[in-house]
């Protein structure tokens, strides 16, 4: 009961800080859709012959970019700006946790009554926010597809969508965990650098590679294995939750404003 009260208060407090990011998420979704609709309605567009469906729209949004190597094996400098914006926004959507490391958060910290519960509540809030971010985006996609008479079939995207949500959840938890050590600004900076590195470095150790459909084993054959994605998700989640509990047990709340 105590944990429940802590969590609901956490969500109420944090929503105030992050609602702008979530609204921005919906606007991003609308931008994506308008881009997709433009391609679909273009008589000579590359997708003009495809059926208009939710699955195709997700593919358009989450395709990312193929490994950036030219025929000589050198890295080609290209940026999938749209794809990056979706996932950067996902990382920013949980930035409300910064409130927990301020003087205001101090009131929550001691009122929680238990340091471990305090951290677990933050983790549940973090996961809820990431899920909400994707739920809002997907709902906008679904509604517009429906009202435009498109098919709501996800086709080959089902498993991939689950993986990207889980990768984002685990990374956002990890981002919050490292922010306890390095501060909120450096924490988000590490997320940005890691996401950007994923574009240029084709490695199973960089989570961003699992967020691009064009790099999956489904598309490339020898692409990123889904099972490895789940290993990364599990590892990051365990580090963030267990590490966070251990850190919070010894945390000195010394913040000054």
């Amino acid at each position: 009961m105590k944990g429940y009260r802590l969590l609901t208060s956490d969500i109420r407090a944090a929503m105030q800080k992050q609602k702008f990011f979530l609204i921005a998420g919906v606007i991003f979704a609308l931008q994506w859709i308008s881009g997709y609709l433009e391609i679909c309605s273009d008589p000579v567009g590359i997708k003009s012959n495809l059926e208009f469906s939710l699955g195709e729209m997700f593919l358009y949004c989450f395709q990312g970019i193929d490994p950036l190597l030219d025929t000589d094996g050198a890295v080609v400098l290209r940026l999938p700006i749209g794809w990056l914006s979706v996932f950067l926004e996902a990382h920013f959507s949980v930035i409300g946790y910064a409130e927990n490391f301020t003087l205001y958060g101090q009131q929550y910290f001691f009122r929680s009554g238990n340091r471990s519960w305090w951290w677990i509540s933050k983790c549940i809030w973090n996961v809820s926010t990431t899920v909400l971010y994707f739920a809002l985006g997907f709902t906008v996609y679904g509604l517009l597809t429906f009202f435009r008479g498109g098919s709501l079939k996800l086709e080959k995207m089902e498993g991939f969508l689950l993986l990207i949500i889980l990768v984002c959840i685990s990374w956002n938890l990890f981002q919050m965990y490292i922010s306890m050590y390095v501060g909120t600004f450096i924490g988000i900076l590490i997320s940005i650098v890691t996401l950007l590195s994923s574009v240029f470095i084709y490695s199973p150790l960089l989570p961003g590679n699992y967020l691009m459909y064009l790099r999956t084993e489904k598309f490339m054959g020898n692409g990123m294995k889904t099972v490895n994605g789940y290993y990364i998700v599990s590892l990051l989640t365990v580090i963030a939750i267990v590490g966070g509990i251990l850190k919070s047990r010894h945390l000195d709340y010394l913040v000054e404003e």
Partner: protein
Amino acid sequence: MVIRLEKAGKKIRNNIILDNINMELRNGRIYGFQGINGCGKTMLMRLISGLMKPTSGSVIVDEKILGKDIDFPEKMGLLLENPAFLEHYTGVQNLKLLAGLKEYIDEEQIYRTLRRVGLNPNDKRKYKKYSLGMKQKLGIAAAIMEQPELLILDEPTNALDQRSIASILNIIMEEKKRGALIVLACHDGYILENLADEIFTLENGRIVNTLKR
């Protein structure tokens, strides 16, 4: 409530912040702490509140070791440094949010507390529009609203006018009569001499003088 500090000390990056603090604090009394800036008053309050862990010795609250048996004293009100609240919420909304964590009190008690510190509970202004004095009063309201057994107040008279100071000192005395254990840090020696039952003077993280009244 009885709080005992036994050889409590704190080091941060090899700097001794608090050194060999021994004291016993009992309910129904006011304990004053004085000393120059950086002498360790706020750090000592953090130690007593459980916000910070000692690197040596221990803090014992009702025979329970802080950080081992319990993480924080159960019924505690705290105003440490500057008050901080959610800027886009009104005073009432902020207090409701905090009170919701423990559900010890209802809305009426929140309203009563706000009136007690001299704030209007029906004030629709957001916290960010509050003056410094109003922010301080809201911080005090948050600390006392749940009728805590342990009340820690760090410079509670900051930013207050003379009339408000008198009102807040009156509240502190009322809280003492209710049976709360009050830990009070204040730059104003005159306030401490008039309120505190025991005054500790800190210097470089050590208690150098104790004055009992």
